[in-house]
Every structure is written in C-alpha cells, then in structure tokens.
C-alpha cells in the first residue's frame, strides 16, 4: 500500500513543491497539497508542514501560520495520533502552535546558512527514523532562524524521553559546537513530542531524495514514515 502525504501550503511556503516532488516523483507515494484555508482533509496518512517563509516570517517565524484555518485540523490530527513532519518553517510552526516545546531564534552567526550537514541519529525507535541504519545522515539546511532554544529543564526532559531525534554532528557522529551551524541548544536539529507522532526538523530531507543530486539520505525519513504507517 502507498501512503498518502498531505502537504500544507501556507502563503509564503516555498518547499511545498520540493516535498511533493520527493514524495510523489522520487519515492512513488501518493501526495496532495492542502491549501491553508481548507477546513478539513480526508484520506491523508501523514501531514508535512513544509519549509518556507509563511506570512513573510512577520512578527516571528510561524507566529501567524498557527492561526490558519487548517491548523486546527492539523492539531486534531496530531491529537488522534496522526504522523506530522514539520520541516524548517514547518518546525517553527509546530513550536508556535505548541505541538512541540521551545522556540527558534536567529542563527548565532546572524547569517542565513545553506549547506549540507551531518545529523547524528539519536533515536531510531521512531516513525521518522526506523529505516535509518547508519550513525549519521547527510542532508542540507537552509535557514536564518534555526537556533533552537528552550530552557535547560526542558532539554533534560527531551533527552530523558528520547525526544531528541537528530543532532548536528560530524560525519562520524561527533557532536560538538564545531558542527553546530546555528547555535541551537545541545546541537538540536530535530525533536518529537512524547507520543512520537509529531517531529520538527530544521534540515530538509526532501532536498536529499533525488539520486541526481548524489545525496539520498532524506529518503530514509519518508520511508520510515511509510514503514510505520503500514506495519
């Protein structure tokens, strides 16, 4: 069976087609766009909140998107255990919506960073990582506000519950400041909720799927989701 991914398009989303292309054309799953003004969606197995600059990043990244009509249904979907992957701006929207703890700040360098980085896989027992066998995966980042921040107590909780899914690391999986592209606390690149059905990820797996780009590690995240849906 093929899973159907629903990709929410907000005004200012710009990675929605990248996600569609990766899921539908490269991985041969079903995919459909969901306009942010929709009041419902049906037949969707997993939701992707794509990257971009929803509402021009006005006020704070993701701050206004959380009030889009579709978000109420996205939150309901999460509460029913539906799988949600928020990528980059999608991660920022998940934070603003309260589906994940913490917040994003401007990169420590104040620069927009666009490059391939390595992620250490900290938890394999999740719907997002079950197909990953290697210690690290290589996928690109492209953001100006990916400096994840929360208080030390919350970081300890995240750590204890296995909610930290990915950390910025070296190719061999060494986690240190040197490999942190944005200053995020504890090198965090991706976290999930305690129920393990909602993940926010700053890097872009959809941009590391097409073999023509000579990097395909991003496929593993979508394959993991598919695996978790039908097993």
């Amino acid at each position: 069976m093929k899973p159907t991914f629903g990709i929410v398009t907000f005004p200012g989303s710009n990675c929605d087609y990248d996600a569609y292309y990766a899921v539908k054309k490269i991985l041969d799953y079903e995919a459909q766009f969901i306009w942010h003004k929709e009041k419902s969606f049906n037949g969707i197995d997993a939701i992707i909140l794509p990257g971009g600059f929803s509402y021009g990043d006005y006020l704070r990244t993701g701050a206004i998107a959380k009030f889009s009509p579709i978000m109420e249904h996205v939150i309901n979907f999460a509460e029913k255990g539906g799988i949600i992957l928020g990528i980059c701006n999608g991660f920022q929207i998940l934070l603003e919506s309260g589906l994940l703890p913490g917040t994003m700040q401007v990169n420590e360098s104040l620069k927009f960073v666009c490059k391939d980085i390595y992620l250490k896989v900290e938890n394999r027992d999740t719907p997002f990582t079950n197909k990953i066998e290697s210690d690290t995966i290589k996928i690109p980042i492209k953001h100006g506000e990916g400096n994840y921040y929360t208080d030390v107590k919350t970081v300890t909780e995240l750590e204890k519950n296995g909610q930290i899914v990915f950390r910025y690391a070296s190719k061999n999986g060494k986690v240190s400041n040197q490999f942190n592209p944005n200053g995020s606390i504890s090198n965090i690149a991706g976290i999930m909720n305690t129920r393990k059905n909602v993940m926010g990820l700053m890097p872009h797996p959809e941009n590391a799927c097409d073999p023509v780009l000579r990097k395909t590690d991003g496929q593993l995240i979508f394959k993991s989701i598919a695996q978790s849906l039908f097993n």
Partner: protein
Amino acid sequence: MFKATVIVKRRPKILDPQGKAAEQGAKLLGFNNVSGTRIGKYIEFNIDTNDEKAAEKEVKEYSEKLLSNPIMEDFEYRLEKVK
C-alpha cells in the same frame, strides 16, 4: 477609543543576536560607552471601546497570544484614551 502601545522585549537572559550585532557596529563607529544593546519590537494599535477594562483585557490577550512568544519574550503596554 484607546490607543495601545506594546513593547515586546526578549527576556534578559536570552541571547539577542541582533542586539549583539548592532553593538558590534556601535563599537566600530566609535561609540565606546555603549553596552547592553537589546532589540525588541514596538507595536501600536487602536481599540474601539470606551471601557478601559475591556481595552486592557484585549491588549493583554493580543500581546500574550500573538504579539509576544511567552517562552522568550516579555511585553509591557500603555493605554491612552483618544478622541
């Protein structure tokens, strides 16, 4: 009608990369006495009611739910009767 003015500030302990960058610029310009630069937001709007308590409630809720992020920001506001 009331005119509301809201100032959103980052909490003192939270890193402010923009403030830090502005301060580096200040040093380059020779403002050697400048320190502790923090950048926040200034927002103003009208509230169409004559009931001060209602206006206060609205400005607080608007600030809490949208204008500020309670995880890292505090806000202060001023209400001024106009017309």
